[in-house]
C-alpha cells in the first residue's frame, strides 16, 4: 500500500475522526493532534489493515481510546475551549447570530455529558452510524448503546427545555 492508496482509504472518514476527537477534547488543536496521531498509527500499520473488515471502525475505536487516554493524562488540564466556526448560512445576520447562540448552547450541554454518552451521541446523531457499528466501536452491546443514547438525548432535552423557558416559567 503506497501513500496515495492510503489517502484514498482514510479520506472518507478522516473528518469523522477529527470531529469525534473534537467532541471529546473540545479544543481544535488537540483534536487535530489526535487525528494526526491516529492516522500516523494507521499508516505505520498499513500492512495489517487488510485484515480488518472496516478500517473506519478501527480508526474510530483508536480515536476513542486515544482521546480517553489524553483526557486521563495531565495534558487534559491544559485544554482550551475553542468553539467551531459555523458555516455561513443564508438567513440574515440577526438570525445567524441567534442560531449560533443556540447552537453554542447545545454544544455546551453536550460538553457536560459523560464521555461515553458524548461518543455515542456524536456517532449516532452527527455521523449517523448504525447501532451495530457503534456497538462494535464502543465494544458494547446494541441495547446498552441504545440506553446510553436515550439517556444522552433526554439529558439534552431537559437542559434545552430549561434554557428555553428560562425566565418565562417558574420551575
Amino acid at each position, binding site marked *: 500500500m503506497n*501513500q496515495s492508496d*492510503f*489517502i484514498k482509504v*482514510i479520506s472518507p472518514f*478522516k*473528518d469523522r*475522526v*477529527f*470531529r469525534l476527537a*473534537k467532541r471529546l477534547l473540545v479544543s481544535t488543536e488537540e483534536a*487535530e493532534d489526535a*487525528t*494526526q496521531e491516529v*492516522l*500516523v498509527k494507521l*499508516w*505505520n500499520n498499513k500492512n495489517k489493515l487488510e485484515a480488518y473488515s472496516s478500517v473506519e471502525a478501527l480508526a474510530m475505536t483508536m480515536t476513542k481510546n486515544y482521546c480517553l487516554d489524553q483526557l486521563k493524562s495531565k495534558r487534559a488540564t491544559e485544554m482550551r475551549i475553542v468553539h*467551531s466556526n*459555523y*458555516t455561513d448560512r443564508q438567513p440574515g445576520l440577526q438570525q445567524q447570530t441567534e*442560531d449560533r447562540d*443556540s*447552537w453554542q*448552547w*447545545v*454544544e455546551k450541554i453536550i460538553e457536560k455529558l459523560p464521555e461515553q454518552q458524548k461518543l455515542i451521541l456524536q456517532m*449516532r*446523531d*452527527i*455521523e*449517523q452510524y*448504525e447501532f451495530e457499528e457503534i456497538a462494535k466501536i464502543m465494544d458494547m452491546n446494541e441495547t446498552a448503546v*441504545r*440506553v446510553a*443514547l*436515550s439517556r444522552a*438525548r*433526554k439529558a*439534552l*432535552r431537559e437542559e*434545552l*427545555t430549561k*434554557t*428555553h*423557558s428560562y425566565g418565562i416559567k417558574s420551575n
Partner: protein
Amino acid sequence: MELKAIEKLLDRYFEAETSTAEEKELRTYFSSPNVAPHLEHYKSLFGYISQAGSQQFEKSIPLKTKRHYAAWISIAASVVLLFGMFTFFNTQQPSQEDLGTYDDPEVAFRETQKALNMLSQNVNVGVGSMHYIGEYEKTRKTIFKK
C-alpha cells in the same frame, strides 16, 4: 409532514428507537421554517446536529518515510566509500611500480650482472646444503645393504 407523526417520531427519538432515516426526517422538519411553536426549542438541537457534521480536518497528515531515507543513505554511503577506496588504490599503484631506470646501457648492464650474481650466490647456498642430503643418502646405503 403531519404534526402528530413528528411528535411520535420525537418520542421515539428520545427513546433511541428511531432509525437513521427517521432521524433524517426529523432533521429536515426542524430545518424548515414552519416548525410548530411548542417544538421550537428542539430547533437548535437539530440545527446543531445538522451543521456539526460539516467540520473538516484541514491539517496535513505527516506520513513518515524516514525509514526509507535511512536505507538509501546507507546505500549511498557504501557506494561513496567503495568508490573512494577504488580511486585511492588506483592512484597509489603507479608509485609502487616505479622501480627506477638507468639511462646508460653500461651501468644498466653492470647493475644487472650484480643483481644476477647476487641471485646465483643465494641459489648456490641452497645447492650447497643439498650435499648434506647426498652424504646422508650414502651412509644410509652403506648401513642398509640389500
